[in-house]
C-alpha cells in the first residue's frame, strides 16, 4: 500500500489548524535535523483542557499531515490524555504503517506536542 493515501495528501494540501497563537500557554519547536522537517506548536490550555492548538512548519507530507491530524485529535482533550499518546496512536490517526526511516517524520508532531505540554511559557 502506498504511504501517500488520500487522507495524508488531503491534510498535506489543506492543513487543519495551521498558524500560530499569540496567547499560547504552551509552545515548542522541534526538528528532524537529518531530513529538514520543522514544526512549531502553540497550545492554549484552560483548566487542564487543550482549548486551542495550532502548528506551523515545513517538511515532508508525512510530518506535516501528521501534525494536522494530531492537532485535530487533541483539541478539547485533557493535557493528561495528550501526554499519554503513544507512537501507535499516531499511526492509527494517519492510517498507514511507516518504515523505520519515515517513522521519525510521522512522530515529530507528537514529540513537539509533548515538549510543549511539558514546558510552560
Amino acid at each position, binding site marked *: 500500500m*502506498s*504511504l*501517500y493515501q488520500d487522507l495524508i*495528501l488531503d491534510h*498535506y*494540501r489543506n492543513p487543519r489548524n495551521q498558524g500560530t497563537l499569540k496567547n499560547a500557554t504552551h509552545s515548542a519547536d522541534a526538528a528532524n535535523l*537529518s*531530513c*529538514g*522537517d520543522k514544526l512549531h506548536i502553540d497550545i492554549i490550555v484552560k483548566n487542564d483542557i487543550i482549548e486551542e492548538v495550532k502548528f506551523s512548519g*515545513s*517538511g*515532508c*507530507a*508525512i510530518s506535516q499531515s501528521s501534525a494536522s491530524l494530531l492537532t485535530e485529535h487533541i483539541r478539547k482533550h485533557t493535557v493528561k490524555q495528550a501526554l499519554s499518546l503513544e507512537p501507535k496512536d499516531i499511526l492509527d490517526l494517519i492510517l498507514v504503517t511507516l518504515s523505520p526511516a*519515515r517513522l521519525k*517524520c510521522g512522530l515529530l508532531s507528537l514529540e513537539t506536542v509533548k515538549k510543549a505540554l511539558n514546558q510552560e511559557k
Partner: protein
Amino acid sequence: MLNTSQIKKDFPLFTHHPDLVYLDSAATALKTQGVIDAERAYLEEYSTNVMRGLYPLAETATEKFEMTREKMATFIGAKSSSEIIFTSGTTDALNLVSKLLASQIEKGDTLVTTAMEHHSNFLPWKELAKTKSADLHIVSLTKEGMIDRESLKKSIDEHTKIASFSAVSNVLGTINPVKEIIALIRSINPKTLIVIDAAQAVCHMPMSVSDWDADFVAFSGHKMFGPTGTGILYGKYSLLETLPPVNFGGGMVLDSCAEDTLYKESPYCFEAGTPNIGGMIALGSAIDYIENIGLQNIHLHETTLASYAIEKLKETFGEDISIIGPSKKEKRSGIIAFTLANVHPHDIAGILGEQNICVRAGEHCTTPLHHSLRLSATTRLSLSIYNNENDIDKFISVLKEIQAMFLNK
C-alpha cells in the same frame, strides 16, 4: 552509448529485480557477477590469511590479494604498488591520511577544504584543525557550483599545510579540473600537501594520480562495483616513506622487541591487522571489468545520459524544476540533484521508491553545501553503466505523477 541490456546481465541484482530502476550508484554501485564469484571463491576455496602462511592456500590468497594492489596501481596511474594502501573505504582513507599528517600540523597553520565536500572530506580536517589550534579555510563556490578560483587563491598562503578537495562533487555533479587546481595551489605554496577525494570520480572517467600530481588520493571500492568495506588511499611514495605509522598491530612490524620498533615499509606499515581479503580480491575483478568496458566509454555513456535526463527534466517540468550544479554539460558527471517546487525530497524519493525507482533524498552527507545553497534537502539521481534512457523515462513519468499529486497540476 553502451549496450545496457547486455551490461545488465553482468549484474545479478537485475535477475532478482528485473524491473528495478537503480539511480543511486553514487551511494553504492551494484556488483558484477565476476566480483561476486571472486569473493565467493575466496570464501569457499581458499579463505586463509594473507602474508603469514607458508602453506599453498595462504600463498594463493596472498598472491591474489597483492594482485589487486598491482592492478589498482596501474588503474589509477600510480608509479608503483607500494603507493597503494588498502583501507575500508574513502572515509577510512581520509581519516588515515589526516592522522598520518597530524604530527606536521602546528598552531597557526591552515588547512584548506571547499564548500562542496562530503562530510568524510570535511570532518577529519575540521577535527584536526581543532585539536591542533590550526585554522580551517573553506573555499567558496561559484553560483554554478564550481570551486571559486579567487576564493581558492585567497585561502592558500605560506601557512597552508594541507589542501583537500573532491575530484567530483557527490551532489552538484561538478567535475573539478583537478590537475589545474593542484597546479594553482602549488604555484602559491609548493609545500602544501594536496589530498583528493576521488570517491565519485574513480570508475566514471579516465584519471591518473601521477598526471594530477596529487600527494594523496582516497576512494571506495564499493562505488566501483566492488564489495563494501574496500577502499584505497594512494600516497606518493616519496612522502609515504617519511611518514611514521599511526595504527599498530599485526602484519605491519618487522621487529617488535627492539627498543625502537622496526616497522615494515609502505604500504604494509599502514595496514595493521587482517584486511578485507576476499573484498580486495573481488575488487581486482571489478578493475578488470571496468577496463574491459573502458573508462572513456563509461564517461561518455554516463554524461550523455545525464544530458538526456537534464533536458527531459527541464522540458517536462519547466519552472517547477531546479537542477543544482554547473549548467555546462562538459563540467558535469552523471550525478543530478534537483528540487521540484516545494515538494519535499523525502516524499519524492518515497513515492519513486514505491514504484521501484531508487534515488536518494536528503543532504547526501553535505550539510555545509546545502546550507550554502539555502536548501534543506535535494533529490539526487546518479547514473552508471547499467542505466539507459528507458530508466530516465520511467523516472520522469513517476515524477509527473508526483507533480500532479502535490502541486495539483
